[in-house]
């Protein structure tokens, strides 16, 4: 517990609307994630407390935490049966889809936020359906994206609920999967009172490839010709080296 407290990076978000409102103080167990060759996912702990500035009464509060990975454009394809076999058809383009999304809450956003707040903040699955794409079957494709990414751990919908202690202290866990996209992961902690978000604490988790992993990936995409030639010599070296070693070992 002392370790966790030590790890807390106290940041006070100044609320612009009123001075006497409650605030949120939050922290992350780690702000940097390094993807190396043995990376197999990582757990991030998010914690903090509600700073009560309103001394007259304790307003019932809820917490919603969102973690959003870098946005990418996707092509979603549906398989159809043609000549007896299953073949890809109908591509759908999804623009700016988060590569990772985690939503954790003390209560369902639909229960604790007003409809206007939900429409404005796009918390939860709402944000995936904001596109005005009218292509037939587009929303099925968006649903398929949510389904597939939920299965592989890229989209998490309240898998590990928030624990709220004494109406003030809270902590939550986000399990980042192995197949992370490089970039800044926006972490938002929302304080909900009286059906609206009164304040939000925002921080970023930096996800970076490092070492061999980074070098191979960058070279393959930035210097593909060099990378191709390099791969051949690397393969020759390892093939030749391993068989030489093996023969010597047998003698």
């Amino acid at each position, binding site marked *: 517990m002392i370790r966790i407290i030590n790890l807390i990076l106290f940041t006070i978000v100044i609320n612009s609307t009123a001075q006497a409102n409650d605030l949120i103080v939050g922290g992350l167990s780690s702000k940097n994630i390094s993807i190396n060759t*043995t990376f197999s996912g990582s757990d991030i702990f998010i914690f903090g407390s509600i700073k009560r500035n309103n001394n007259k009464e304790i307003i019932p509060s809820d917490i919603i935490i969102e973690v959003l990975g870098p946005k990418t454009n996707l092509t979603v*394809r549906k398989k159809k049966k043609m000549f007896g076999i299953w073949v*890809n058809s109908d591509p759908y383009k999804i623009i700016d889809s988060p590569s990772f999304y985690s939503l954790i809450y003390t209560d369902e956003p639909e229960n604790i936020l007003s409809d206007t707040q939900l429409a404005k903040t796009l918390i939860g699955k709402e944000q995936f359906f904001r596109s005005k794409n009218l292509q037939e079957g587009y929303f099925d494709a968006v649903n398929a994206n949510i389904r597939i990414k939920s299965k592989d751990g890229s989209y998490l919908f309240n898998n590990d609920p928030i624990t709220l202690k004494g109406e003030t202290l809270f902590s939550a866990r986000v399990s980042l999967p*192995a197949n992370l996209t490089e970039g800044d992961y926006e972490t938002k902690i929302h304080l909900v009172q009286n059906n609206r978000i009164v304040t939000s604490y925002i921080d970023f988790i930096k996800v970076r490839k490092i070492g061999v992993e980074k070098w191979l990936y960058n070279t393959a995409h930035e210097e*593909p010709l060099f990378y*191709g030639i390099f791969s051949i010599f*690397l393969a020759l070296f*390892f*093939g030749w080296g391993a068989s030489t070693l093996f023969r010597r070992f047998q003698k």
Partner: protein
Amino acid sequence: MQVYLPIAEVSVNIFLLIGLGTLVGILSGMFGVGGGFLMTPLLFFIGIPPAVAVATEANQIVASSFSGVLAHFKRRAVDLKMGIVLLIGGLLGASVGVYVFKILKEIGQVELLVTLCYVVFLGIIGSLMFFESLSAITKQNRPQKNIKIKRHTWVHRLPLKMRFRTSNLYISAIPPFVIGIVVGVLAAIMGVGGGFIMVPAMIYIIGMPTKVVIGTSLFQIIFVTAFTTIMHATQNYSVDALLAILLILGGVFGAQIGVRLGVKLKAEQLRILLSMIVLCVCFKLVFDLLITPDEYYSIMVDIQK
């Protein structure tokens, strides 16, 4: 222990990859085949994206053919002139193959193309080998008929004749050139060396003496697969060097075991075993095409420039 493959962008157990390399290495050592045609589908089965599996396998074949080529050069069992004609065709074929691959990748049909190619080739070769070795086993006691290779076929009426001293042949350059093209296309699309097509074609169509066939085909394979690796790296960014190294390490180890195991088994038994493995992989691919998928949708992240 999980290893994160930088280009395939999947996390796979390192021992599974080395084990797979070893398994295919054992088979290739036992049967004297390249093993690319088994490794690529096995990589699909463990979840490596097909585009990465094909390109990386081409890279692995460069390494696995290298020591073979050197050994054959030492024994002067390489027809360099024939090899170069086959190679020119191979480079042309590989260029076309990678181009087709790139287009189909963009429209999301590359997986289908690769799978269908595998079903066709594994199906034909597996069943031919199976029935041939089955009849060889049942007719073991009867005297074998000598198969006569026709010395004068349509091949000898083609123009552009060249002299190939090492093979002791004076034939048209067109058949080896065309064979080279076919093998090049297969290397680019299927991630195979193509020895299983090229070797019979060199013996039965070109009429080359068997002692130079393996060396000459390996000579062509090493350059065509190296070229294919570079083409895939520059066009599709799909060569995973780390994956290739792990497969090579397993492969080298497996090949040594395979050679020792192979000596203990009879040729017909070996062939019938190999044909059964080939047919199993083929049936699995067909099965995956036919059964109703659990998930109708697939997602691809667009490459951002």
